[in-house]
């Protein structure tokens, strides 16, 4: 037990390593993790100035962004692809949010949970399903059109295009855009509309002149958020664009990092990363200024108050549910149907009477369970290790930001936010560089599951931090202080007082992060080697060579995931914890 005479220490507000045990551990962990975040970003910068072959300083990579036609085309495609994705997602999300939050649409309470659930469906799911529907050569809809509609002898739908890929991605991102928008729709001040109504404005005019301008910041913010994700989206361009030589930023980077010949072209990777970091940071900055401005339009009241709901007649009700159904159909139901169908046939062909006769469960039986052992093990390691590590890191960083009263915690908060703003694959490519050139060979890292664990953790640091920041603010600091006064040190207070009170939040965040790790493809793909293949990566690798088995595996993946997601939502709903 320490006595007072041996506690001469330096002034805490200058030196964060005040206490040689608890606090220094927590601060140390934070410095290591956030240090890695910063280092990886700086590595990208370093790479951008480096000639891939000679490692000498050069500006050439930046000029290649424009000069190299392959790179330039990919970046151009990315802009077009993202624009379509943003447009489609807002096109669906805005009316769905409107119907869910501002009207009397029957059953609208189901919309939010449905959207929340669909955010967890892996992106490549929709990609695969859509490919099977709308591929120019093998797509079912095209084959049906040729067979059934006279005068058509060529494909009419082509999903293998920038626009096609954009549409699928946009449909997938609709859920996310909806969740962002729902909040601002809900928080509208009814008095602003009522005053217009009292003074003679009809419904349509009110919607146009009052309601829409008020939610516009929310829509814009959702659009910016979706843009950040769409720019670096990998799932759809990987499954659809890659083998058809249509590249976007993410698949271009993938090719540079895993080339068939030569070494990875780190120079271009670096330059593209830096360009993308700037764009992403700009979008984030814009997003925050929109959010800040939009707070002028919301009402801050403690009471239970809802904006006035618009009554719908039968036609409008039908319209509302049609839009929701189309979204669910095309982003979930139809791809699922296609994948189930594809998994039941030896060779993929359109649904027809004779095809039904060929249905078989062979693809499920033929799943190479022995080969799958590795990917299964890797996926399980990721699913269980990553969220656990993230909980600990998230607690440490949130404690520092909310409780520690150390100077400069705004910097900690900002750096912790970077992995959210910056496309995750940049961390993967930088980590690749670090693994190849910095870490000595005798440390098992590059090409193992541990490099994946590291990248998964770094890429997702923002999520637990933000969630625990909010949760910690709810816990009265005097509960901690009572602990300190009565003799408990920093770690002991965290363990005995803070963590038990945070337990519901910790549990639900753990499960969410576990689901995200389970379905993650992008990071696994960029750093994959023969040893660290995960289940999604395995599906990706056999999709073109053995489509039926890939389909069967995806169905199994989803079947395992869905009950977990649904029971998780029932559980959090009951505890009133539905937060994003």
């Amino acid at each position, binding site marked *: *037990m*320490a006595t*007072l*005479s041996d*506690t*001469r*220490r*330096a*002034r*805490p*507000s200058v030196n964060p390593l*005040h*206490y040689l045990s608890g606090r220094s551990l927590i601060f140390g962990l934070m410095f290591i993790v956030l240090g890695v975040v910063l280092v990886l970003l700086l590595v990208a910068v370093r790479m951008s100035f480096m000639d891939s072959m000679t490692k000498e300083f050069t500006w050439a990579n930046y000029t290649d962004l424009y000069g190299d036609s392959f790179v330039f085309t990919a970046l151009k495609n990315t802009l077009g692809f993202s624009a379509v994705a943003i447009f489609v997602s807002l096109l669906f999300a805005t009316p769905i949010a409107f119907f869910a939050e501002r009207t009397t649409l029957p059953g609208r309470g189901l919309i939010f949970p449905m959207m929340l659930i669909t955010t967890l469906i892996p992106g490549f799911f929709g990609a695969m399903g859509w490919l099977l529907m709308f591929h120019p050569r093998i797509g079912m809809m095209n084959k049906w059109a040729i067979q059934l509609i006279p005068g058509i002898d060529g494909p009419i739908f082509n999903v293998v295009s920038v626009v096609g890929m954009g549409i699928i991605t946009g449909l997938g991102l609709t859920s996310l855009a909806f969740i962002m928008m729902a909040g601002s729709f809900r928080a509208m001040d009814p008095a602003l509309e009522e005053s217009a109504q009292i003074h003679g404005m009809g419904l349509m005019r009110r919607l146009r002149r009052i309601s829409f301008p008020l939610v516009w910041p929310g829509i814009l913010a959702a659009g910016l958020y979706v843009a950040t994700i769409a720019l670096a989206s990998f799932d759809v361009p990987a499954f659809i664009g890659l083998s058809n030589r249509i590249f976007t930023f993410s698949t271009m980077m993938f090719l540079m990092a895993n080339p068939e010949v030569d070494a990875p072209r780190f120079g271009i990777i670096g330059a593209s990363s830096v360009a993308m970091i700037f764009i992403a940071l700009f979008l984030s900055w814009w997003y925050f200024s929109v959010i800040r401005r939009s707070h002028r339009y919301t009402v801050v009241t403690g009471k239970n108050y809802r904006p006035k709901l618009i009554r719908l007649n039968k036609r409008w009700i039908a319209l509302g549910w049609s839009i929701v159904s189309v979204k669910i159909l095309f982003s979930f139901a139809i791809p699922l149907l296609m994948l189930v169908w594809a998994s039941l046939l030896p060779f993929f062909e359109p649904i027809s009477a004779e095809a039904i006769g060929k249905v078989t469960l062979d693809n499920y039986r033929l799943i190479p369970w022995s080969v799958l052992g590795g990917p299964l093990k890797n996926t399980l390691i990721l699913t269980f290790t990553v969220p656990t590590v993230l909980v600990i890191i998230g607690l440490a960083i949130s404690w520092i930001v909310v409780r520690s009263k150390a100077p400069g915690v705004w910097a900690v908060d900002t750096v912790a936010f970077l992995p959210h703003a910056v496309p995750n694959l940049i961390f993967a490519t930088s980590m690749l560089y670090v693994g190849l050139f910095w870490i000595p060979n005798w440390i098992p890292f590059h090409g193992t599951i541990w490099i994946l664990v590291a990248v998964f953790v770094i890429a997702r640091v923002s999520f637990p931090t933000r969630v625990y920041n909010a949760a910690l603010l709810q816990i*009265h600091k*005097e*509960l901690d*202080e*009572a*602990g*300190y*006064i*009565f*003799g*408990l*040190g920093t770690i*002991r207070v965290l363990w*005995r*007082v803070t963590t*038990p*009170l945070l337990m519901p939040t910790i549990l639900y965040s753990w499960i969410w992060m576990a689901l995200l790790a389970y379905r993650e493809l992008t990071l696994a793909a960029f750093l994959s080697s023969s040893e660290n293949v995960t289940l999604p990566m395995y599906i990706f690798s056999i999709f073109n060579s053995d489509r039926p088995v890939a389909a069967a595996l995806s169905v199994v993946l989803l079947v395992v995931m869905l009950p977990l997601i649904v029971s998780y939502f029932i559980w959090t709903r009951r505890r009133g914890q539905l937060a994003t």
Partner: protein
Amino acid sequence: MINAEQVLKVFHTKENDVVALDRVDLQVDEGEFFVLLGPSGSGKTTLLRCVGGLEDPDGGEIHLGGDLVYSGNTNVVVPPELRRVGMVFQSYAIWPHMTVADNVGLPLKEGNMKVPRDQVDAKVKRALELVGLQDLGPRPAPLLSGGQQQRVALARALAVEPRVLLMDEPLSNLDARLREEVRAEIKNLAKQMGLTVLYVTHDQEEAMDLADRIAVMHLGRILQLGSSEELYMNPVEPRVAQFFGEMNWVKGEMGDAGVVNTSFGAMKATTNSAIASGSKVRVGVRPEHVELVPGQGAAADGLSFPAEILSQTFLGDRRTFTVKLGDTILTARGDPEVSISGAVTVRIQPNRASCFADDGSVD
């Protein structure tokens, strides 16, 4: 037991710097019940938290029981968990995920103030008995009423047998009846156990009841320090006087030889510091010291003045009067059985009229 010297604490906000403690000196003896009294923002809670270690001052020195726990000069900061104090927080700070017994027992089981395992249960039981909650040991903390939570907080602080007990406005969240009850219990327990208590409140009656000595604080400074009688009878400045009970203020100009020229005549008053002739002053008189004599027998002796009763109110144990002298309105307090109205003579004894320089601090 508590020795604070020149304690300085500044809070830095975006707009400006707020001096919460302006080089405060404080000494609390062992076994003393010491109260810090003042309005919000006076620094009393900040001082308490500095003594406990929950805030780090920006200068000065603090000793607890002879041990140095803070020194701005030699950069010594002892963290709160090593200071061996107990504290009752304003919000009680009872840990909601534990039972009553676990709340009281945790500091005894873990941390710097732990005791041998076999003593824990006995100490918890004794502490709960002291506050009258001996049957509530297994109850989960959130299922308690406010008053019960308050008692658990008290039990937790008593169980560790601290050398100093810190209390931060512990009664302000209780309803009036409960407040008096718990106040009496705290007073008894402190006396019984010979505790050294540093107590913060804004309630002057609470302070006068509980304290051996009171320090009246305002904007980070101690205005006056003493027993409740000293502070009530001999306030050194208007703010202190105003803080304790009601006070009538009469504005005037300082004359010669302890006489103040007011709108209703020359008045004899006592000053506790020299005030130059001609300077603006205000004289404070407690309502109970405004004597009322029916009839107009005023003599020009500096003590009695003609006046008129504007209104009177019967309040059960006393009667209050609104009295007009010249331009001035005073409140007087008298025997409830005697009703007075109309023209009267007001008499104020000079030793009950405290004269202060008028620095505009009180209106």
